[in-house]
């Protein structure tokens, strides 16, 4: 890449790294893997930078790459994910809603029990704030699919977390 392109990429990287890491974290539930996925997405972006003419579509491109990588990984034989009936809880069981920080861990743990595609829909919609149309575009599926995956994902999350989800409250 020429210097101007490198500067553009560097600027984009600085602006978006943390957001991409956060998305990756909720997608996979582990910061180390999240960093791997986020880094791979940025490496892919750097390699394709000159071919992405629509700079307004960079976020969508990275999201799509990221989600695909995480979902693909979840399907690989050595890291196949299986939805569980209960969230993987820390010793001591599900914490109370008043324990704000721990409660957020409950949400992350609960997300692990949601199938990867549904989880991706939830993360894109509620973390990245995408509407149905943008989520559908990012995932390469129909808006109807996004709606149904959202409903199923939330139902799964509620089934796993029970009252804990209703009691969850954002930090003040």
């Amino acid at each position, binding site marked *: 890449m020429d210097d101007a392109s490198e500067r553009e990429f560097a600027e984009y990287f600085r602006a978006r790294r943390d957001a991409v890491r956060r998305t990756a974290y909720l997608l996979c539930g582990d*910061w180390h893997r999240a960093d*791997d*996925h*986020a*880094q791979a997405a940025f490496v892919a972006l750097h*390699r394709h930078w000159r071919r992405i003419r629509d700079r307004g579509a960079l976020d969508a491109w990275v999201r799509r790459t990221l989600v695909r990588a995480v979902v*693909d990984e979840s399907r690989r034989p050595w890291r196949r994910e299986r939805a569980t009936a209960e969230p993987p809880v820390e010793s001591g069981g599900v914490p109370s809603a008043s324990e704000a920080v721990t409660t957020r861990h409950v949400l992350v743990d609960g997300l692990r029990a949601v199938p990867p595609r549904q989880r991706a829909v939830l993360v894109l919609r509620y*973390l990245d704030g995408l509407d149905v149309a943008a989520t559908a575009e990012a995932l390469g599926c129909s808006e109807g699919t996004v709606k149904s995956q959202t409903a199923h994902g939330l139902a799964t999350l509620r089934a796993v977390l029970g009252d804990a989800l209703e009691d969850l409250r*954002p930090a003040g």
Partner: protein
Amino acid sequence: MKGVGDMTDDEKLGALFRAAASDTAPPPGFDHESVVRASRRITVRRRAAVTVGGLALFAVVGVGGAVVLPDGREEGGASTVAAPMLAPEGPPADARRDERQAPPPAAAEGAPGAAQAPYAARGSGEADAAAPAPLGPGTTECADRQDPALRAIVEEYLPEVVGAPEAAITMECRPPGERGVNLEVTDGAARGVLTVQYLPPGADRVGGAAEGAVSRPTASGGTVVVSSRGDGPGAAAPFADRLDALAAQLSPRL
């Protein structure tokens, strides 16, 4: 500013997700330099593979063919004659700089030129006996999940994927011996990711393969797993009707 009580369900969920994602974030494990470095490393590796492939093709067509054609009955003639010429004594300078780069022996064995040797031989009549040695396990410390040698063989049997961009993969260090290729492919209206994975002999496969995956034992005693998935749920998987044939064609080459 809205209080929690004034939020809609979507807003509450959004606030929860954002809080969950930001609360415990450790310092990032990568920076701009490491990204650029990894990108350039991949580019160098791809160029090296192309260069080796070009040299291999030249050697096979220019020299190997001349040796093989006069006596097509000589088993393994193409590989035994050409291989030493293709494989340098040591790794190229680029490969020495980075242990994750494609190993020269593998690149030589599976380079595009070497992979085309059987075609050249078939054109002469009966030289299927001169099929190259199977590619076999990878030799890098961490498995190469965008293995140029494996890709060259895949492209031989599925030329539609020549030039296809690499699909995103993680930086995870997979056990040595494995090889992989993950490509963003298009098959008519179907778009998605084609994955070819080679597992060395004795490698444990935890759980089942991806939906629709086809696996075959390979000539080196390993297993090749070919799968494809479409973009999005319910989307048609590209080359779904050719996975079985592809696995069968790759089987004797790996």
